[in-house]
């Protein structure tokens, strides 16, 4: 699938890395931002995008990553407040059309939505899968996939 979307991903942890590699493989132009240089170590050889070293809460770092021209911005850091701030900045200041933010604390999910952010609560999501798998019982669990 060839397309010309520009996607900026903040945070190169496990989730950020996974998304960056998948999107890069599918032909998107991907920019990853992280504060720690070592975070980029897990990006595999078939990641063809850019790496920006810096703190995403600094406007200059976001500008350097080209957020102004991005089609999609995804914040995946392990700090909910960093995600909610950068998502709002991307959406309302840099006018990025689609903005997604990872939320860890389920109590914050609703508040983030009220601020106009597409919040994805990874805790709630995985809990649902766990509960679903439990509900399916032990015999089905062997081959179970979410």
């Amino acid at each position: 699938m060839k397309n010309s979307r520009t996607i900026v991903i903040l945070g190169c942890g496990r989730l950020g890395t996974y998304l960056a590699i998948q999107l890069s493989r599918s032909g998107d132009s991907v920019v990853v931002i992280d504060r720690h240089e070592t975070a980029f170590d897990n990006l595999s050889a078939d990641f063809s995008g850019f790496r920006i070293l810096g703190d995403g809460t600094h406007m200059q770092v976001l500008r350097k990553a080209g957020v102004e021209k991005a089609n999609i911005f995804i914040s995946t850091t392990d700090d909910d407040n960093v995600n909610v701030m950068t998502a709002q900045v991307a959406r309302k200041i840099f006018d990025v059309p689609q903005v997604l933010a990872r939320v860890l604390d389920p109590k914050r999910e609703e508040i983030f939505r009220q601020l106009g952010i597409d919040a994805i609560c990874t805790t709630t999501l995985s809990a649902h899968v766990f509960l679903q798998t439990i509900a399916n019982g032990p015999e089905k669990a062997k081959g179970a996939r979410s």
Partner: protein
Amino acid sequence: MKVLIVGGGNTLYFLCRSLLAKDHEIVIINRDPSECIQLARDLAAATVVCGDGSTMKILEEAGAMEADAVLAVTPNDQDNLVICQLASLQFDVPKAVALANDPDNAEAFRRLGVSAFSTTNIVSSLIEQWASLEHILNLIPVGEGRVNVTEIILEEDAPVAGKYLKEIELPENALIAVLIRHNRPTIPRGENDLQAGDRLVVITMPENHRPVMKALTGKPD
């Protein structure tokens, strides 16, 4: 006023000390237990709540419902933004002000609906003013930086010294709001004259600040 202040370190300590001296009711929120104990000791008149001020639970515990103002001065801009957004959206706190450690974020926060200030911006503008014009005593940006209030002393060689106010041509959007002579302030009118040694409180816009200062003091900017 009941004021919730989130943060730590010297900024918070001295801020609280001066607000307590003015008889305000202060609640401090800090997430470090040992700093909380220290703060409770040093600022006996304040209430100290230990926890993450960017959560609903802690803000509620600290009495955000009845607060007149929330001040977020942590070293993390993201926390300051979320604290202020929660305070105004969830608890209807009338005034929520965030410290923007990154001066670029001050403007960003305002566009996201949160009042913000940057100490870097304030200090750098003060230094610039002091360095360029010795006779400027104060420069206060108000209206989110769109208006400047400046206090100046007229020197002997000032082009406006000895003139009546009605004779003075100032650039547009500028006003001599107060004239202080021998410690007596007046709101001047056209019939008032200006003399060397007078202190003037001048209102300008940032874009015409320099020409106005030049017209009054004669000093190149």
